[in-house]
């Protein structure tokens, strides 16, 4: 049979697409090799309806007190110390009132001691997170217990989440982090270049029944608990003291409550 060039090209094109695409689609549909019953949570793991924090910085007195919390997190999670603010990666850090609550802005009459006080900032694990809303691959997603998680395997490094987060809680691996990790924790992975990372509420510790590392190291300054449990310590503090959250007007419903007030 005679076939002209156009028909031949069409045939070749379609065959190529089917030849490559066909098996790929079939493979992808292949399904799981593990049954659903083969995995389950660790019975030791902590459970909650909505995890949250209360941070009372009046309980942090020296720079070392703050640094202990920061180091507790950064050490066990292999957070690199890049050494410059351009490429830096940080999950928890300290900053003053003005930068923690910038929308409360210029107030020259404010309590001076509060203005100069330092706070601890980390991912708010919002109940309505903007970052989760914008992620195109669900690499960042919200767990049922309120943890805003980060799947480092799926992240494509588009940094839309970094644009969306109103709290500047996220860092990007602008370079390979490994050379900048002072002391590796061999029980926890590092990250690789090109992915976004942030505080993940010590999900690996929650899974074995432990509190987040920063809370444990804070000597009571950071209290951790279930915001939806009316008997939890966090709820009791929120109900008895005056607390504020960062940028509440944006509606993301942050889960970190900062205790405000003078020293007692």
């Amino acid at each position, binding site marked *: 049979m005679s076939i002209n060039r156009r028909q031949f090209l069409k045939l070749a094109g379609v065959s190529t697409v089917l030849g490559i695409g066909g098996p790929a689609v079939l493979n992808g549909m292949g399904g799981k090799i593990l049954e659903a019953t083969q*995995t389950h949570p660790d019975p030791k793991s902590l459970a909650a309806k909505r995890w949250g924090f209360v941070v009372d910085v009046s309980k942090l007195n020296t720079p070392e007190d703050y640094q202990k919390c920061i180091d507790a997190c950064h050490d066990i999670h292999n957070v690199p110390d890049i050494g410059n603010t351009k490429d830096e990666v940080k999950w928890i850090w300290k900053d003053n009132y003005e930068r923690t609550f910038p929308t409360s802005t210029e107030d020259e009459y404010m309590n001076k001691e509060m203005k100069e006080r330092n706070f601890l900032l980390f991912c708010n694990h919002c109940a309505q997170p903007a970052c989760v809303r914008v992620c195109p691959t669900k690499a960042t997603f919200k767990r049922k217990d309120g943890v805003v998680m980060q799947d480092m395997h799926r992240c494509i490094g588009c940094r839309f989440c970094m644009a969306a987060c109103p709290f500047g809680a996220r860092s990007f691996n602008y370079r390979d982090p490994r050379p900048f990790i002072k002391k590796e924790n061999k029980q926890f992975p590092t990250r690789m270049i090109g992915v976004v990372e942030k505080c993940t509420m010590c999900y690996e510790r929650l899974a074995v029944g432990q509190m987040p590392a920063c809370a444990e190291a804070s000597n009571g300054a950071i209290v951790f608990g279930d915001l939806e449990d009316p008997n939890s310590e966090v709820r009791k503090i929120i109900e008895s003291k005056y607390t504020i959250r960062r940028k509440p007007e944006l509606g993301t419903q942050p889960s970190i409550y900062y205790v405000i007030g003078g020293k007692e």
Partner: protein
Amino acid sequence: MKNAGKIVIGVAIAFVAVFAFPFYYNLGKANAKPELKFDTPVILQWEKEHGKKECIEPKAFMRAEHMQMLNQWRDSVVRNGDRIYVNSEGKEFIMSLQNGCLNCHSNKKDFCDKCHNYIGVKPYCFSCHIAPKEKES
């Protein structure tokens, strides 16, 4: 078409030259079947306690499906928060490449790398998951 014969011969020679490249490039390089070592301290300890060397699933399954299994482990741990794996014999293990698999198979160079190098695969798992430090042999 003018010079059709010469063109066809030229194209055929080019085709053979390009597609036989992997073969003649590796000519002479001894590429024996990889010999995996299973004599890490943790595996030997298990053998002492259980009488035989065994992985969490049979060897044939692991050899063929370990990557698919690890992918599902990854989704289970990271996305669902489930850490415990029940193997085909009902035994429970914690799903972890770094703290589970590599705990027994702490000799990455004589185990993981042997097959991966042989078939030319470069999984990037180890860019993040810290492999145990090995003595330079």
